[in-house]
């Protein structure tokens, strides 16, 4: 098998240039998708028969919750690659995505809380899914805190990576929590285990577009932050002169 692509991906100058080229190809479609989905979800889709207009919170809650899990998987897998193959760029990816994941996990918790007010009659409940989502936020913050508290960059990468990898166990727990436990949180509505559709098809469109928009946004943010990380880590490399144009 030809492993050239793998070695290329491990090369900081290659990653830096590739990220710079790719960013607008993800950033602009993300902006369009999010704007269209916003208009669609707020103004066009009819109100829910039970929750009225209040159900529209789903269009920001579900995608940010999806982000919290997807970003964590990205972080966990990158950290594992960094640990196993001692690949510097992989550690840079993990360090780049942690703040993105933390911020969207916070939004998922906050929008869920706001939604819980009128629908459950409580803003906070020690419900399995909510508790494990909160743990996810602490894992992100723990990774960031640990990483910045260790002076030696390589030891910081490796130590924080161990935490990130161990924490991935929490991702399936969050995802399946509503199935495993009798939870106040509702069960999945788009993809259920028996393939049954629970959501009005008219309501699904903006949700899927939101999910796509947030995923594209995540890639654009990751590529931008990755360039910053790669520059910061490559203190002596000569290609930097060319990259920053001085």
């Amino acid at each position: 098998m030809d492993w050239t692509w793998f070695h290329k991906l491990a090369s900081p100058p290659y990653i830096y240039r590739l990220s710079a080229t790719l960013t607008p190809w993800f950033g602009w479609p993300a902006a369009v998708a999010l704007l269209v989905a916003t208009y669609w979800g707020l103004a066009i889709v009819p109100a829910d028969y039970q929750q009225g207009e209040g159900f529209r919170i789903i269009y920001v809650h579900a995608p940010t919750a999806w982000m919290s899990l997807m970003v964590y998987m990205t972080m966990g897998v990158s950290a594992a690659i960094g640990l196993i193959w001692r690949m510097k760029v992989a550690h840079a990816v993990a360090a780049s995505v942690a703040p993105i994941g933390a911020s969207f996990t916070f939004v998922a918790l906050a929008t869920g809380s706001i939604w819980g007010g009128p629908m459950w009659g409580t803003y906070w409940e020690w419900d399995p899914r909510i508790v494990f989502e909160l743990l996810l936020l602490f894992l992100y913050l723990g990774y960031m805190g640990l990483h910045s508290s260790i002076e030696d960059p390589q030891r910081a990468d490796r130590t924080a990576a161990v935490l990130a990898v161990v924490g991935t166990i929490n991702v399936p727990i969050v995802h399946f929590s509503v199935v495993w436990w009798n939870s106040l949180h509702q069960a999945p509505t788009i993809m259920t285990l028996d393939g049954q559709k629970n959501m009005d098809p008219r309501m699904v469109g903006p949700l899927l577009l939101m999910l796509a928009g947030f995923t594209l946004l995540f890639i654009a943010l990751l590529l931008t932050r990755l360039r910053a990380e790669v520059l910061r880590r490559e203190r002596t490399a000569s290609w930097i002169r060319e990259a920053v144009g001085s």
Partner: protein
Amino acid sequence: MREFLDMGGYAAFVWPAWGLTFVVVILNVIWARRSLARSREEARRRLAMRGGES
């Protein structure tokens, strides 16, 4: 318009949830760009310092 803003009585929940999400999306874009700009600035300064030594 009035009716749209009222969100069927759920205005106090729908708008803060959407507003917070919007703000965090924008902040993420600003933070990422600022982080890159700062890294480039630092790299430039390092290069300038090294250039002065040699």
